[in-house]
């Protein structure tokens, strides 16, 4: 592990003292605070009518008044930006500044550099999301005055952990780009292109592809419609953004029992009571594993590429 600790310490110091971190944190703070404020306002409005459904505290993060999206949606489209910003110049900027060859000529293992950078970015993401989560929780508590139950706390912690994995995926993708592309601008652009594609276009494309493969009209039998819907969903789940969105819905909405299409006859006789935390986790589990796997794959490719890279200043 020679050299990992110094690299980790320096990278953390860089992240926390950097202007980039300040800007991202300010951005997510503004988004989060306004979303939570709006959510709390609307919860206060109809709290009496909504009493029986419970889980008021969770609504702080998921409810919206239609004008401003809830905090969860903010994370799902700002998260990638945070991840990309933390990693897009991890390796190539050191290479072009000529610091990489100097660092690697010190008696450290080469992987200490990439492990240190990755770990520092994950810790940064974790602290950023945890602090914003606590901040919003505190604000919400002040505004609605309903303390969270243990169940809700568990769900929020799971949500935070999932978000860290999601942001870490984008970070490791951008670290990979920073190894592949020599120019920081190119790697930043490549990361953004993937982000926009995965978040905005991919779900649309999945719909188009499903329409093409399994065409439907008014007279189509229900089996075919079901098939169409399943195909569309499977395709769109290839995008990490979809995985994250579906998983957060399952974790933060205890009423959700399945993420796939469901027939009305299947719900007959079902009690409309919420699932427990562990059952909700079970629903979201494949998605969570998918995101973790994507993150690890990106990291593994980066690791191998970095270890084999020719180290020259020019």
């Amino acid at each position: 592990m020679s050299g990992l600790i110094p690299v980790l310490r320096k990278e953390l110091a860089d992240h926390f003292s950097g202007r980039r971190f300040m800007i991202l944190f300010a951005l997510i703070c503004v988004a989060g605070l306004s979303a939570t404020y709006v959510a709390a306002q609307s919860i206060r409005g109809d709290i009496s009518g909504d009493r029986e459904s419970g889980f008021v505290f969770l609504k702080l993060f998921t409810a919206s008044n239609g004008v401003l999206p809830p905090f969860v949606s903010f994370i799902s489209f700002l998260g990638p930006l945070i991840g990309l910003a933390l990693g897009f110049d991890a390796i190539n900027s050191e290479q072009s500044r000529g610091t990489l060859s100097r660092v690697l000529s010190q008696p450290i293992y080469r992987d200490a550099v990439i492990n240190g950078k990755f770990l520092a970015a994950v810790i940064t993401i974790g602290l950023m999301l945890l602090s914003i989560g606590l901040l919003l929780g505190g604000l919400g508590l002040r505004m609605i005055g309903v303390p969270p139950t243990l169940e809700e706390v568990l769900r929020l912690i799971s949500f935070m952990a999932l978000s860290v994995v999601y942001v870490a995926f984008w970070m490791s993708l951008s670290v990979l780009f920073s190894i592949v592309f020599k120019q920081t601008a190119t790697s930043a652009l490549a990361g953004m292109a993937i982000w926009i594609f995965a978040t905005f276009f991919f779900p649309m494309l999945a719909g188009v592809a499903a329409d093409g493969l399994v065409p439907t009209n008014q007279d189509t039998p229900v089996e075919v419609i079901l098939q169409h819907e399943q195909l569309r969903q499977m395709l769109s789940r290839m995008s990490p953004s979809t995985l994250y969105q579906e998983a957060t819905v399952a974790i933060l909405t205890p009423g959700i029992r399945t993420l796939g299409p469901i027939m009305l006859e299947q719900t007959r006789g079902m009690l409309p009571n919420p699932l427990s935390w562990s059952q909700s986790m079970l629903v979201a589990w494949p998605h969570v594993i998918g995101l973790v796997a994507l993150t690890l794959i990106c990291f593994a490719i980066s690791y191998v590429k970095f270890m084999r890279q020719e180290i020259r200043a020019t």
Partner: protein
Amino acid sequence: MGGEATAIIEMAGLTKKYGDFTAVDHLDLQIMEGEVFGLLGPNGAGKTTTILMMLGLTEPTAGRVRVAGYDSTRKPLDVKRIVGYLPDNVGFYDDLTARENLRYTASLNGLPSAESRRRIPDLLEKVGLAEAANQKVGSFSRGMRQRLGIADALVKGPKLVVLDEPTLGIDPEGVRHVLELISTMSHSEGITVLISSHLLHQVQQTCDRVGIFVKGRLVAVGPIQTLSQQLMDSDSKVLELQAEPLTTELKDDIRQIKGVDGMQESGGMLLITCQEDVRRQIADRVMKAGAALQHFRMRGFSLEDIYMKYFREA
């Protein structure tokens, strides 16, 4: 250097190929402990590649390097622990101060912080950057960066220091300062120094021995005086003559001298090719003809000429 000097760097049959291109071709070279060795050659001769192989940053295609008995490919960490390296185009973290940059290097070397706190001010003092210690490196001039690079290479207390193009791109005053530093560290601290450069005249006074390196091959090794002697003996000489008036009779007269092979005029100068040193005879003829001798010099004694000669030959 006496007969008892031991080799600190041993290269045997060292070869590096990039595809079809051979960057370093069967290099055999020994560098003795305590000497200042200059690796000279034009750009792209394979000097940096050789250094990278020595540090274990690039794997040789064939052959091996040992530094202080450690195989650079198998035990790069042991090698890097005793070798200080100043890369070509050295880079520092611009947003850190000179002191912080050195402290990071010290921590990568596993130096205890008390030790580095003691060592770093000394080093900064030595390279003349004591006043700039707390200044951000971003504001440093090229010469200051180069000196900081030397301090950086010395932080670990190395046995051997490798300087890649240490005088490139800095002003004459800066060059003088850098060369003085190199002499001091070699003489007062007994550190072996390997300098790679394409600027022979800048490093010649500092080097005990030089190796001339062209297209991946070492074409000559030895002290500069020996090299020039070898060259003088093996080759015909060229005399530059400028006299006023330079009449046809005088030219014919000179051509008669035994040992003169031929002559040609270029740029107002008469270039006389001869087998042996016939300067005296020529001077006599010029005097006799009553002409004024304006310029008379034997080519090939200047180091620049040796250098050009070797470069062209290879």
